């Protein structure tokens, strides 16, 4: 433990990252370049998110990591253990108890408070990337607010699929100015981007940090005749019975057996502790046995 500086990164690096974060917060949705460091994990595993977490963590923080909503996946477990080792911070699986939450692909179902920070891992921060390969050109488009191209993507969706088929990484416009990639969260989570907590986005390989301050207007792009619709599986959670949470579909056997369950494991288990039971769920005590 003492072999590492607090939260792995050296103080100068954390300072550099904090400056980028502050700039990002000052210009909501703007991608701030930063000198991303090599981290002891491969690119694509959350190197951006880890650096942002390292820069914002203090010894008093309680840290939570989720991957696709779950606390117990490899990625979440190893990042959580990483900061347990290098920062010695308290860790938790409970959304309400955490002060810093690093996430990949989900926003917790539980509303965040203003004393909580949500850190996203971002693979490709540039929403225009797949339409315009040149970074020089996309930066110019951002600075001149030329966002017609973003709608071309949505147009293509409708013309090919009859509806806006983009289901994740759905582009949003932040505070009426910058078009932003909300990281690959399902579009079900897009309305939650207007929240009380601070949201920080870190892209390690692409060396960009951006942010949404609390209570910032975040509008999902759409057409007048094809308005934005957050979607989820038309089902209730089979374990806890929640009908308002984002669901994972699980194949149970070769005979077509399947079940839907909350992708947010903490939300699901909290509900089950409160006594909610879904269609295929057993009461909590028996389930544990």
């Amino acid at each position: 433990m003492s072999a590492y500086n607090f939260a792995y990164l050296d103080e100068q690096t954390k300072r550099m990252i904090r400056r980028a974060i502050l700039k990002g917060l000052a210009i909501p949705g703007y991608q701030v370049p930063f000198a991303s460091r090599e981290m002891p994990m491969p690119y694509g595993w959350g190197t951006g998110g880890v650096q942002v977490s390292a820069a914002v963590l203090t010894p008093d923080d309680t840290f939570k990591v989720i991957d696709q909503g779950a606390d117990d996946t490899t990625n979440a477990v190893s990042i959580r253990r990483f900061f347990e080792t290098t920062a010695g911070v308290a860790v938790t699986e409970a959304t309400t108890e955490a002060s810093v939450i690093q996430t990949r692909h989900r926003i917790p179902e539980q509303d965040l408070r203003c004393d909580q920070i949500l850190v996203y891992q971002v693979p490709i921060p540039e929403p225009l990337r797949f339409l315009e390969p040149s970074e020089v050109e996309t930066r110019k488009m951002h600075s001149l607010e030329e966002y017609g191209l973003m709608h071309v993507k949505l147009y293509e969706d409708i013309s090919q699929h009859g509806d806006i088929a983009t289901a994740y990484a759905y582009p949003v416009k932040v505070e009426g100015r910058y078009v932003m990639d909300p990281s690959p969260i399902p579009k079900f989570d897009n309305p939650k981007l207007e929240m009380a907590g601070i949201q920080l986005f870190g892209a390690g390989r692409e060396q960009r940090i951006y942010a949404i301050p609390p209570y910032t207007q975040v509008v999902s792009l759409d057409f007048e005749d094809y308005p934005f619709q957050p979607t989820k599986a038309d089902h209730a959670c089979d374990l806890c019975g929640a009908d308002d949470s984002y669901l994972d579909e699980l194949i149970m056997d070769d005979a077509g057996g399947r079940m839907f369950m909350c992708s947010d494991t903490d939300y699901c288990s909290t509900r089950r502790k409160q006594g909610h039971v879904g269609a295929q769920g057993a009461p909590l005590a028996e389930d544990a046995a």
Partner: protein
Amino acid sequence: MTPLLQVENIAKHYGARIGCTDVSFDLYPGEVMGIVGESGSGKSTLLNCLAGHLTPDHGAVRFDTRADGLRDTVTMSEPERRMLGRTDWAFVHQHARDGLRMNVSAGGNVGERLMAVNARHYGDIRASAIDWLGRVEITEDRIDDRPTAFSGGMQQRLQIARNLVTGPRLVFMDEPTGGLDVSVQARLLDLLRGLVREMNLSAIIVTHDLAVVRLLADRLMVMKDGHVIETGLTDQVLDDPQHAYTQLLVSSVLQV
């Protein structure tokens, strides 16, 4: 009558070499001007300077904007110039794939300019895309195909539709018929001539094909080594060339 475009002493140098120099002319609404000359004579440099793709070393390009009348596009701010580029101006590239998004459907290609000027109604965008594809003789059932599935002539027509959908007033064309076979060229020229007359477009056409300017252009400018060596009405220049180079150019055309 105010000219639509007023070009004054445009010069562009590439280091010590001359791109084009001392070019001045006025273009009036509804007028089509041809720029001809051999390869390397500065035609494309000139066109790119006029269209704002290159910054000329000196000189002024004044465009009659809808809001403020004549404005120098060289010194105006970049957002304004780019705004002109997607509203009142159109640029038809020689190679359609330079002017099209090859991984976006034909409808999306035509709709892009509309969406760039804040059209946000899918039904309307699609309706005008269908309308424009029809005008350039691309059938409606090809609207969701990508340009990669189109022939060269169709790609060029799609590029024209994409450019004209916002109702521009000035069209820059860089060798619009280059690389097409003659029968496709003839149909494209026919189409262009119709659209130019119908929409009362002004156009500047750069080409080395004298037949193209004979058909389309009202006025002609002959360039050599970056200088304009002869100007005049198209028929006058082609039928009674004065400058030795123009005479050579005209007599070099193969007769079938």
